[in-house]
């Protein structure tokens, strides 16, 4: 919970990691390159006082994570998103099991998400059932561009992907987090392309599709899909830290998202340990659309901030919001969106 100027905010960080990127776990130059690439994101977009040295960035202890998230980070609940990358890291970069071990020690703090790869066929379906039962999965994180044997990635619209999504429905896994790019293969397509999310979201209206990094660097493609599919959400991991380095650009991103999607489908995320949530939460609560852009984008009300910082994700994951931390103006949606002046009805034709 975060409190500022008498306003209280319930915080759900919908995208965190507990990884091992140490040299000992790096399987090859790809693993090293991957970790260093993350580190450059961290160094480039973090305020100086929140920059770590490389060694600390490679691996965080349990104490580090608990402090960074819950003591200093204002987070009430955090969602683990696994990133296996077993081709790059000996024991995987960040597996469900690594996350789950920590979650079991602090059961009121974490939600553990799993993953699947439709190219694993029947066997993978069984494994998904086991994983779901073991960790009580309500969400999965998917990497569609991952290379596997002779395959150069997959699409959410593939027949086997549909079978897995059907399985998710059956198992009570409702939230499908999709990570697009930056991955290696396939080489000749655009790894960031989000078109397949459109098909899957239409075919599975009861599932929620959370596009991580709000589709960046293809913001417009993501917005276009999300406008047409009410069950598509945008996760703000990677976009949040622009508040510090490029506040006007962040204002444009959040303004565009609220315009095309509305404030109920945008979710706060730190992408810990690339960034720590504390300064992101504090900056977002202080953030406002600059005056000269307010005509286009409106202003961010405290209730919009409450939704983005926690209430939207709480809804997706059935997280109980403590008394007094809900919306100031209940059922605000029915009275019309606060930000994003007009709805774009013509695109829905």
């Amino acid at each position, binding site marked *: 919970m975060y409190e500022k100027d008498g306003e209280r905010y319930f915080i759900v960080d919908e995208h965190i990691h507990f990884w091992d990127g140490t040299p000992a776990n790096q399987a090859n130059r790809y693993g090293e390159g991957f970790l260093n*690439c993350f580190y450059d994101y961290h160094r480039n977009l973090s305020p100086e006082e929140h920059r770590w040295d490389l060694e600390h960035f490679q691996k965080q202890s349990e104490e580090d994570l608990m402090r960074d998230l819950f003591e200093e980070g204002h987070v009430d609940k955090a969602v683990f998103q696994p990133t296996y990358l077993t081709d790059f890291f000996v024991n995987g970069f960040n597996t469900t099991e690594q996350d789950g071990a920590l979650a079991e020690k602090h059961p009121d703090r974490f939600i553990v998400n799993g993953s699947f790869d439709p190219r694993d066929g029947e066997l993978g379906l069984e494994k998904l059932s086991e994983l779901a039962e073991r960790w009580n999965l309500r969400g999965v994180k998917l990497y569609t561009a991952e290379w596997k044997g002779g395959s150069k990635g997959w699409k959410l619209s593939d027949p086997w992907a549909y079978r897995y999504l059907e399985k998710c429905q059956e198992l009570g896994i409702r939230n499908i987090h999709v990570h697009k790019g930056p991955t290696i293969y*396939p*080489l000749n397509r*655009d790894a*960031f392309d989000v078109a397949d999310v459109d098909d899957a979201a239409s075919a599975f209206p009861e599932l929620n599709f959370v596009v991580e990094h709000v589709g*960046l660097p293809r*913001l417009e493609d993501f917005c276009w899909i999300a406008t047409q599919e009410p069950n598509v959400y945008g996760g703000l991991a990677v976009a949040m830290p622009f508040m510090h380095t490029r506040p006007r650009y962040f204002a444009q*991103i959040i303004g565009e998202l609220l315009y*095309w999607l509305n404030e109920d489908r945008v979710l706060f995320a730190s992408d810990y340990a690339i960034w720590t949530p504390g300064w992101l939460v504090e900056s977002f609560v202080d953030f406002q659309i600059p005056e000269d852009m307010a005509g286009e984008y409106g202003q961010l009300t405290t209730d919009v901030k409450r939704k983005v910082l926690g209430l939207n994700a709480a809804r997706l994951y059935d997280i109980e919001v403590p008394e007094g931390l809900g919306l100031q103006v209940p059922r605000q949606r029915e009275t019309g969106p606060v930000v994003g002046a007009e709805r774009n009805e013509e695109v829905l034709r």
Partner: protein
Amino acid sequence: MSVTVPEAALEAAVWRALGAVRDPELDEPVTDLGFVASATVSASGRVDVDLRLPTYFCAPNFAFMMVADAHDALRALPGAVEVRVRLLDHFASAEINAGVTSGEGFSAAFPGLAEGELEELRRVFRRKTHAACQEVVARRLLADGAVPEALASLTLGSVRGLVPRRDLDRLRHRRAELGLPTGPGAALLVDDGGRPLPPEEIPTRLRLARTTRISIEGNAGLCRGLLRTRYGEGEAP
């Protein structure tokens, strides 16, 4: 290739040629983005260019396009007897450099890992940058009081003097790359296939194009920042 060009003149021509090579996603010259790590010419007409990118994992398809485009642009220069373009510090440097040098194309550079060449991908991004350039011109006209629907009756020729020359030239250039009409009588606002936009579609099309532009500009800013973090504050030579 027997034309002899003075070293200084060749060097200037090399930089001009590189200035016309754009990042297909960011729609800016590789020279402005700081992607040229070094460019040298020798008295014998040998040209050596090193390129660098913001991250080790920048998409190899776009990287390949930039290296190949730079290679083609430099080889076309009179006096460039031998051209070598190298991509540095990238996970696929070896494959890309060898593929571009051999001239056998993208698929051959990544046997078994790519399906087909990159032309369709390039077209997708040319359409995006064209829409973004169109929006820049339209935005100026709207700021000066035009209503969106009225833009349907305008031509490229009719807005000369009403919008910055640079923006209009840029729009024409992007349109030519798509093989669309660029003459003064051509409609100002067209779709990807060159069909003039009907008045009722204009507001939504421009709104989406604006999101495209914001996405491209934002991405370019991020890439500049990451390049600085990776290589230090110093500007490219």
